[in-house]
């Protein structure tokens, strides 16, 4: 119907806008936030407190940061027809390594903080290398290859921590997960930096083209001379590296590393974020911006559940309902189905 009333020039632009793959995820996010605002106007309020922004929206962004990081990594692995379900375990390992190396009951650190963080990230990257080599060199199915680390990784983290929750008393460490820079959470800058890096790597080098070629048709990409194996290994390393950074954010946020619980079920959330963002799990088609939006959607869902105050035993049902709605909204087939139904109704009424 819009076609008839809107000025001719606007229509194609609007159409193109709606057809953009990010349109529906973004719309979903906006609707979620606005819906929250309607139920509870305080949800949207932002104010300045102690030199930084304070409010639910800031919390959501800050809370979503680790999930965004992990989702970005997982997106790229999925783009080359892989899967990484070890991210939660890798996150725990990185968090534990960092916390252990800073460690101690006092404000003094066991190793300088920079060393600790570097070591944690290296440990994470090594985990990724392990995954990548299992997949590429031995040709294991990605889900089993990363399942091994998913199971064992948490054990390794607990072994390092001797089963304890490692509390970090060294104050500067808390900055990564809690600190503010120019009024905004520090973690947002980490995300921004990573996005910039990815944007450069995918937009200014041939990496993006290669990744999509490998995901679209691995055999053809190899025949065309794309170094498919190295890129695949590299992406597993990158995914684990992202999980490592997330580990630092998470452990810094609560000033402790909980080897058993940190990043529990994160892999599911990450894959959910990736799919909500429009990336196909079968490889080839991926959207990093979509994954960021997907992660924000998930975190907003969680916050919504907290803020509308549903009893905890209803949480899962509410979450399920919201995910179903989000999914259906994004399905072109569903929308055209609804449109057809509406049109039929209209026609029915007209004839009656």
């Amino acid at each position: 119907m819009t076609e008839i009333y809107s000025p001719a020039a606007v229509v194609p632009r609007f159409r193109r806008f709606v057809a953009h793959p990010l349109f529906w995820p973004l719309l979903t996010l906006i609707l979620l936030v606005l819906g929250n605002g309607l139920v509870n106007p305080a949800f949207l309020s932002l104010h300045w407190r102690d030199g930084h922004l304070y409010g639910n929206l800031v919390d959501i962004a800050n809370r979503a940061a680790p999930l965004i990081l992990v989702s970005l990594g997982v997106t790229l692995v999925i783009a080359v027809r892989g899967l990484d379900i070890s991210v939660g375990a890798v996150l725990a390992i990185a968090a534990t390594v960092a916390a252990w190396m800073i460690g101690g009951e006092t404000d003094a650190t066991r190793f300088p903080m920079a060393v600790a963080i570097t070591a944690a990230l290296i440990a994470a990257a090594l985990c990724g290398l392990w995954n990548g080599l299992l997949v590429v060199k031995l040709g294991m199915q990605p889900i089993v290859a990363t399942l091994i680390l998913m199971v064992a990784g948490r054990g390794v983290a607990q072994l390092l921590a001797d089963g304890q929750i490692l509390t970090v008393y060294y104050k500067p460490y808390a900055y990564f997960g809690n600190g503010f820079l120019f009024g905004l959470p520090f973690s947002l800058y980490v995300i921004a930096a990573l996005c910039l890096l990815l944007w450069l790597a995918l937009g200014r080098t041939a990496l993006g083209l290669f990744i999509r070629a490998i995901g679209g048709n691995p055999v053809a990409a190899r025949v065309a001379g794309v170094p498919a194996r190295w890129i695949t290994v590299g992406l597993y390393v990158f995914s684990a590296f992202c999980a490592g950074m997330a580990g630092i954010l998470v452990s810094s946020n609560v000033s402790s590393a909980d080897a058993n619980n940190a990043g529990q079920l994160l892999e599911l959330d990450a894959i959910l974020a990736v799919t909500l963002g429009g990336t196909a799990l079968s490889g080839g088609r991926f959207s990093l911006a979509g994954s960021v939006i997907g992660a924000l959607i998930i975190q907003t869902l969680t916050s919504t559940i907290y803020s509308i105050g549903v009893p905890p035993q209803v949480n899962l049902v509410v979450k399920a309902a919201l995910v179903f709605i989000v999914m259906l909204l994004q399905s072109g087939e569903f929308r055209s189905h609804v449109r057809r139904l509406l049109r039929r109704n209209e026609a029915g009424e007209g004839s009656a």
Partner: protein
Amino acid sequence: SRDAGSERDAAPVVGFSQIGAESEWRTANTASIKSSLAEAGIQLRFSDAQQKQENQIKALRSFIAQRVDVISFSPVVESGWETVLREAKAANIPVILTDRAVDVSDDSLYVTLIGSDFVEEGRKAGRWLLQDTPAGSGEVRIVELQGTVGSAPAIDRMEGFHEVIDKDPRFKVVRSQSGDFTRAKGKEVMEAFLKAEGSKIDVLFAHNDDMAIGAIQAIEEAGLKPGKDIRIVSIDGVRGAFKAMEAGKLNATIECNPLIGDQLADAVKAVLEKRPLPKRILVEEGVFTQDQAAAALPGRKY
């Protein structure tokens, strides 16, 4: 297969199925059992169930197949043990429960239960709150951080707490949400509570110390003073909680003592020597408040 009778005198074997290693509390529990049994000269077959009842049942079956002398375990949940316990009984292997009871039709399926009472812990938290609140005060708005939905301690602690405070109309639980027993979730949920309720929260009741520790951070970040603007009571009594009390950020913790190793070792010996045992062996537990914290901290083992 080996002859159980002749080895019994040498080194009795106990098969122990632990729930998992989900918290420091559990780790301390495991460590206590391991060291006490070793001291008592008992050989331990230890199995970790990773929070799953089916894994525990599998472990029990394996213990039966291995013909251990005594089986002991901390049940994940109360129900669902009938079959495997009967198998143990048929194989003539006595069973000692730790931590919590099982729901079986036949009492003779286990010898005794050593452990704490989650409902009582909830009641203790409630009673502390009643005591700590001056008479004649106005409405007391409580937020509650529950444990993992459906988990036994979460259900029981909530039940005990409400049993006590529901009698007094001044107390009102305004928000209750699961923090999954973890610091990170505890903090996240508390953040949301603070945003939603503003500064109208008087008391926080957390089902374990870890969530309380996370929530304390959230309260501080919101510009409030934990322990003063919002009074906090939690359960377990881990070291971190004592540190927080020492710093005045936590008001009270209800002890839930994981150090049951010695009592277990004694019970095993009694069972093997066919001495009678009470059906329930209680663990010593107390309530700790800020003024006791500094004194108690150095002696805490977990």
